[in-house]
């Protein structure tokens, strides 16, 4: 299945001569860095979804807001699409370039503008790395909560575009819960402020709407985030199980005991072995599943909670329970989990990471389903799971050099996502739709709902110039891919051309 932009399904893009666009932009924004030679464009041909590559028409690397404004105004006038990119670590192809579009790279906006410890906020340019925020806040005993596993490299602008998560979402929320204000430049080149340094702002909650909108409604040029006091202490328990279902039930038991852990992660046997081989985290390689449960807060409460969780885990049939003795061992326990993706990467020439979410109670059924698909396709699947919040990351192992195996892996991945939707979940918990899951959107949403999304898009970008083809599929695409909901045996929108 090829997910590259297909004008037949995704909408026509204007044919405009590259040299004309280059000349226009050079004249309108004399100081703007524009890359146009193939060798200069090459590094920008993909984001974290590296199986798909497209050379953009041009790459723009602005350094001032005026340059961004001018770029937007000129692209709008010329009818040239604009794909915005941050650090390019996204896993769903949200920053996949367009051959007929300009790639707007925000990486030069990389300054931390202000950290205010008393108001507990930080004001950031979009190219600031996620981890750098917590590092800047650390001297004040504060930190920024969302911690995607790419946090060393990913930028806050991209985090806002994808509504990035991490391993602490159940307790501390996603990006949308931790961003207070963004500055935006629209496709018309206007500046606007959404949200506020206060806890709310007048009017509609456009800040929530923009968070996770994948660069399709505007370009975020500045972000104000909330900082939290660092928990006094954090302790980690690791429990092993001889059965995946028992581990899944233990997760529910912990929540039922009234505890909301800071992090609650599960890994299956294949993931455990891969991680252990890679980082020597001390994981029990004979276990079918492990749970990592981090409890954070005030010391006295954390000690009480550790005792409660230990009792719950024993009751749930854990075959072994270890508590990290100190911060160093806690970091080691986490290192295995945080490196699970590259660890699996060492076992197989390629792997494909999925991002479905499910109600936790459906875990046994979904794991069984994944195992069945894995067998049917003859491809191994390692399961890494944000168990506390129901976000699964099955990693499908394959070898792209074997003809047809990428397609098989993608098809298997699609089946897993459709299973997630079937049990009441979602095709993406934190990685975003991008191009990667554009067809599965047709399974998750009905045509009318997709129409509503397109209406929202039209309110901000009626010409469809901002990151066209991402996030929301056209009805024509859904019709073609057959996963479309059919009501009363009638195809919706009979007026649409069927190709």
């Amino acid at each position, binding site marked *: 299945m090829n997910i590259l932009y297909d004008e037949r399904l995704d909408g026509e893009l204007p044919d405009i001569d590259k040299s004309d666009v280059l000349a226009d932009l050079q004249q309108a924004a004399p100081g703007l860095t524009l890359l146009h030679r193939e060798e200069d464009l090459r590094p920008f041909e993909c984001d974290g979804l590296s199986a798909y590559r497209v050379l953009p028409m041009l790459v723009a690397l602005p350094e001032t807001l005026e340059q961004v404004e001018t770029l937007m105004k000129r692209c709008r006038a010329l009818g040239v699409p604009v794909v915005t990119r941050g650090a390019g670590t996204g896993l769903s192809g949200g920053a996949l370039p367009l051959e007929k579009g300009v790639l707007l790279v925000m990486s030069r906006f990389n300054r931390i503008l202000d950290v205010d410890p*008393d*108001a*507990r906020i930080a004001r950031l340019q979009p190219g600031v790395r996620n981890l750098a925020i917590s590092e800047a806040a650390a001297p004040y*005993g504060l930190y920024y909560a969302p911690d995607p596993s790419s946090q060393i490299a990913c930028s806050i602008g991209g985090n806002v575009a994808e509504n990035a998560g991490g391993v602490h*979402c159940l307790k501390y*929320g*996603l990006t949308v*819960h931790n961003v207070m204000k963004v500055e935006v430049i629209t496709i018309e080149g*206007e500046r606007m*402020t*959404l949200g*506020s*340094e*206060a*806890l*709310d*702002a*007048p009017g*509609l*909650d456009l800040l*929530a*709407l923009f*968070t*996770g909108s994948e660069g399709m*409604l505007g370009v975020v040029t500045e972000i104000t985030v909330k900082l939290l*006091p660092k928990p*006094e202490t954090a302790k980690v328990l690791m429990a092993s199980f001889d059965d995946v279902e028992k581990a899944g039930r233990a997760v*529910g038991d912990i*929540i039922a005991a*009234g505890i*909301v852990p800071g992090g609650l992660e599960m890994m299956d046997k294949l993931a455990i072995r891969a991680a252990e081989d890679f980082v020597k985290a001390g994981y029990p390689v004979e276990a079918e599943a492990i749970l990592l449960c981090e409890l954070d*807060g005030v*010391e006295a*409460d954390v000690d*009480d909670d550790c005792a409660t969780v230990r009792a719950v885990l024993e009751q749930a049939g854990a075959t072994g329970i270890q508590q990290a003795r100190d911060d160093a061992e806690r970091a080691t326990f986490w290192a295995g989990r945080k490196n699970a993706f590259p660890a699996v990467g060492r076992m197989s020439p390629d792997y494909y990471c999925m991002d479905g*979410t499910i*109600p*936790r*109670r459906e875990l046994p059924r979904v794991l069984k389903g994944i195992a069945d698909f894995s067998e049917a396709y003859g491809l191994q699947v390692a399961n890494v799971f*944000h168990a506390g*919040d*129901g976000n699964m990351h099955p990693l499908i192992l394959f070898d792209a050099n074997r003809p047809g195996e990428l397609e098989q892996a993608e098809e298997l991945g699609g089946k897993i996502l459709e299973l997630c939707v079937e049990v*009441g*979940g*979602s*095709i993406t*918990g*934190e990685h975003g*739709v991008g191009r990667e899951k554009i067809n599965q*959107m047709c399974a998750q*949403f009905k045509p*009318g*709902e997709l129409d*509503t*999304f397109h209406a*929202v*898009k*039209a*309110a901000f970008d009626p010409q469809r110039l901002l990151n066209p083809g991402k*996030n929301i599929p056209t009805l024509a695409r859904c019709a073609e891919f057959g996963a479309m909901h059919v009501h009363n045996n009638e195809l919706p929108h009979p007026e649409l051309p069927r190709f």
Partner: protein
Amino acid sequence: MAQTPHQATDQDISDALGERVRRATAEGRPLRIVGGDTKAFYGRPVEGEALSTREHRGITYYDPVELIVSVRSGTPLAELEATLADNGQMLGCEPPHLGADASVGGMVATGLSGPRRPWAGSVRDFVLGTRVITHEGHEQRFGGEVMKNVAGYDLSRLMVGAQGTLGMITEVSLKVLPKPGASQSLRLEMPLPDAQAKLAEWGRQPLPITAAAWHAGALHLRLEGGPSSVAATRERLGGDSLDDDFWTALREQTLAFFSREDARPLWRLSLPHNTPSVALAGVEEADVLHDWAGTQRWLRSDLDADTIREACARAGGHATCLGTRQGPGQADPFMPLEPVVAKYHRNLKAQLDPKGIFNPGRLYAEL
């Protein structure tokens, strides 16, 4: 797995509501969406045919272990909270009812949160999914019954605080929280500047504070969490014990400060953390109640709207006029939007409600 609780009053009338909306759009007749009718004062008056959610009620899904509940919009808020309490859980945003009949839909549509908001999050932060009747009369579903979901635009959270101007909310899925193991409230006599300094200092520490309000010479605090930390913090901070009812009275605006006898309009000032007192001529200390550790301030004042709003805007916040409860204090209770932001509000309204049938004018005259 726990069974979703059912009441004899549960029923799904979404088809009938959809039909009413479809006809309203077809005939271009505006609708005034009503739930428990407890928060009509919060916004501009709406001219339109009343469309009530009250018969559309019941919890459609609740499994305490998942920390998620789905509930129809007409369900009384009190009924939902009672069900959660039976399972040792609660709504983290601590929503004000402002009347016995408050509905879940009204909570979501107004987006009003209670004293716990700065620490736990707002109504919007707890919304995971919604079902909404669109202008064409179709019920559509956004988000869902999972904690994390970034598929498509976040229309669920967009509906929170939109006051029914973009569509009619028929169902909402919410994240719920376990009730804290221990709770103690206390009262510390101290002048306002000291309280502000203390709150800034404590804000950088991992203390189990879940409510903080200063009024009439005293800082009122609520400590919640594990029994050990609550007891230790109570010991450390000292002060006098305070009845927990204080927070209910604050949330429900039944403290003397909110008295209807006071003829002056009530204003809500929303300000950044650590904002000093807003300088307003003639406003005395007793005219301001500082909630949310100072980020939500209630003001009784006859000053003109522009003066109050300009002072708040200078501090990075905004001001809303809630009137006198006898009637609106301002033709436009909400702070005017910046022109570019206002333009995109209009565009969005035109896209999602082209005939202008959903609560027209409720937020702003042009929406």
